[in-house]
Every structure is written in C-alpha cells, then in structure tokens.
C-alpha cells in the first residue's frame, strides 16, 4: 500500500489534512473509474455486459458526489465557488468567474456560503 496522496511529510500534517488527502485520493479514483466505464461502454456490444457496466458507473457517480460534498463541507470558500458553478445554466466560464469574485469579496454574507463562520464538525481537530 502506498501513501502517494501526501506531498509533504505526513507526520507534519494535521489529522484534518490527512483525512482530506484520503478523500481527495478517493475522489480521484472515482473519477478514474467513471472514465474507465465510459470507455468500456463506448465499445461494449453485449447488452447484459453493458447493463452491468452502467450499474457500476452509477455507483461511481454516487461515490464521487459523496467525496466532493465531504470536501466542500470542509472548505466554505470552495463550497461558495462551487455553488456559483454547479447545477447552473448559462456559460460555465462566466459563472465560474462570477462565483470566484463573489467568494473573494465574501458577497454580502461573508466568507461562507451560508454566512456562517464555517466551523462545523471538529472531531478530526481533536
């Protein structure tokens, strides 16, 4: 088992940073799996095999979304930017630029998407 998710000495990282590193690694793996299933579906002709691969891809969609949501909850500024980009119609780049600017100035609600201090769960900080 490797520890490639760390770019700095793990012993110097906080528990929260190590947890986030694991979740970043998980999210990357889920995205890779979705990519693999996309490519297999592009060429697979057997109907039963296609159903199985589609079912597997469906699971990876869920896993990726859970990983992403976990990380967004940990970083309110990231969440604020994501809320300006994800599930929105219109030009993606323009939405992203507007969301980034809004997060930088804190909007009218400060630095967090819900106006909170972004403290949340502190168990990993103990």
């Amino acid at each position, binding site marked *: 088992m490797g520890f490639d998710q760390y770019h700095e000495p793990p012993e110097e990282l906080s528990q929260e940073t190590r947890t986030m590193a694991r979740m970043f690694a998980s999210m990357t793996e889920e995205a890779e799996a979705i990519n693999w299933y996309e490519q297999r579906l592009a060429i697979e002709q057997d109907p039963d095999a296609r159903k199985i691969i589609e079912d597997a891809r469906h699971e990876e969609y869920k896993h990726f979304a859970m990983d992403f949501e976990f990380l967004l909850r940990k970083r309110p500024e990231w969440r604020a930017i994501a809320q300006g980009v994800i599930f929105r119609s219109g030009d993606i780049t323009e939405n992203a630029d507007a969301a980034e600017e809004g997060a930088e100035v*804190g909007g009218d609600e*400060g630095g967090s998407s819900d106006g*909170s*201090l972004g*403290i*949340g769960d502190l168990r990993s900080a*103990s």
Partner: protein
Amino acid sequence: MSHLLRAHAPITEAGWQDIDDEARARVTPGLAARRTVDFRGPHGWEKSAVSLGRVGDRDSENGVEIATRLVQPMAELRAPFSVDVAELRAFDRGAEDVDYDDLDRAARSIVIAENTTVFHGNAAAGITGITEATPHDPLSHDGRPETLPSLVASAVDDLMRAGVQGPFALVLSADAWILVSGASEHGFPLRPHIAQIIEGPIVWAPGVSGAVLLSMRGGDFLLDVGQDLAVGYLTHDIEQVDLYLEESLTFRVVSPEAAVAIDVALSSA
C-alpha cells in the same frame, strides 16, 4: 440576502472578514461537543425540527386512525454583542488593535451555551443532556490528582461493562482541565497516562461541570445543527453597531449508557 441581514450593517467587507475571523478564533477552542459527539449538518436556517421516527397517541375519527409524527424542534441560540463604530473605522484605516471585547464575551457565552446544552441539557430548548440521561451513577473524585487515572479507568470499565466500546473522550471543565494538565503522578504527567487509558481526546470544555467520559464510537450522541455559528446584524446608531452570534441546533442522546459523569474535586487533599 439571508436572515443575518449583514448587508444592512455599516461594516466594510474587510471589516466583516475581521469580525468573522475574531469570532471564529474565539469560539473554536471551546466547542467541546463538536469534538466529541456526532455532528450532523449544517442543515440550514430553514431546518425547524429533526424526525424522531415515532408517532404520538393514535386517535380515531370516522373509522380512520390519526397519528401525529413526533419531532424535536431546533433551538436558536443567540448571543448579542456590540462594536463601536469608531473601532470599525479604525480597522478600515489599518488599526491592528481593534476593541472586540464585547464580541469575545458573546463568543464565550455561546460556547458555554452549546456545551452545557449537550452535556447537561437545556430545559428551555427541550433538550436532555448527556449527564441527565446517563443511567450510570456519577463517580466522585477525591481531589488528589494522582487518583484521577484510576477513577477514569473505573469509568471506562463502567462503560465497557455496559457494552460500550471506545475510543472514549474525557471532557473536562476548565478547572478540571487545569488540574489534569498541570498535575503529575509519581513525577510523571497525568495527561498522557489518562489519554492512554481512554484511547481518545482530553477536551477542554467551558461550561461543563466536572468531567464527562463518553464513547466516540459514533451513533450514541447526535448534535444536529441547522444554521451553523454565524454573526448577524441587528441594528446600529451613530456610535455602535449591534450584532449577534447565532446558531440553531438540537441534540439527542441515543445511547444513554455510553457516558458517565465524574464529579471532580478541585481542592487537593
């Protein structure tokens, strides 16, 4: 704009950032419940209640049974404070010694309110706390620091006999935390010995009475937060801005047997 009405305050964006940073720095160290129980949310300000999964007494009308779902309402905790307009303008000019004393007082108040609500209950909010719910008799400490590790071990034994697994957290009042952190046992510091026994964190908890040992295996104690701690705007005049620290929450003890209280004597024998 949200219910916090921050855009109505005569506070610059940088000023809001500074107030939020100050508030965050003041409340975070003391939020003991969030370090030890299951934190769920934030669900948002609109969240009004959590489902208990149960129904009340069934009634019958014209051959149809009626039952009402039982819920536990969210409680709103609010600690008002004020900041002098002159201090805000001084910050805008680059002052680094802005007077946030009243914010610091409010931060301490809301930390104590959250901790006492979770660990000792809050009748006004309809919340039963951990020490109110536990079926275990509280353990009494005799005031000698060197006996505390064996007492904590007894508390761990009580929980394990009740089928409760660790890791465990030891939540300490501010005075008890000083006792544990500053004392030694045969020349060795108490703190690492206790940490070894509980296999979990030793947590500083303003507002908590004595000490509480509780399991951190998960699923025993549920803290649901709607609006997470935030600074909102109330009103202002030419001299001061009235703000508040606020959150909405409720708390439930699912496994009362997963915690035991310890009465910590503070005068050394």
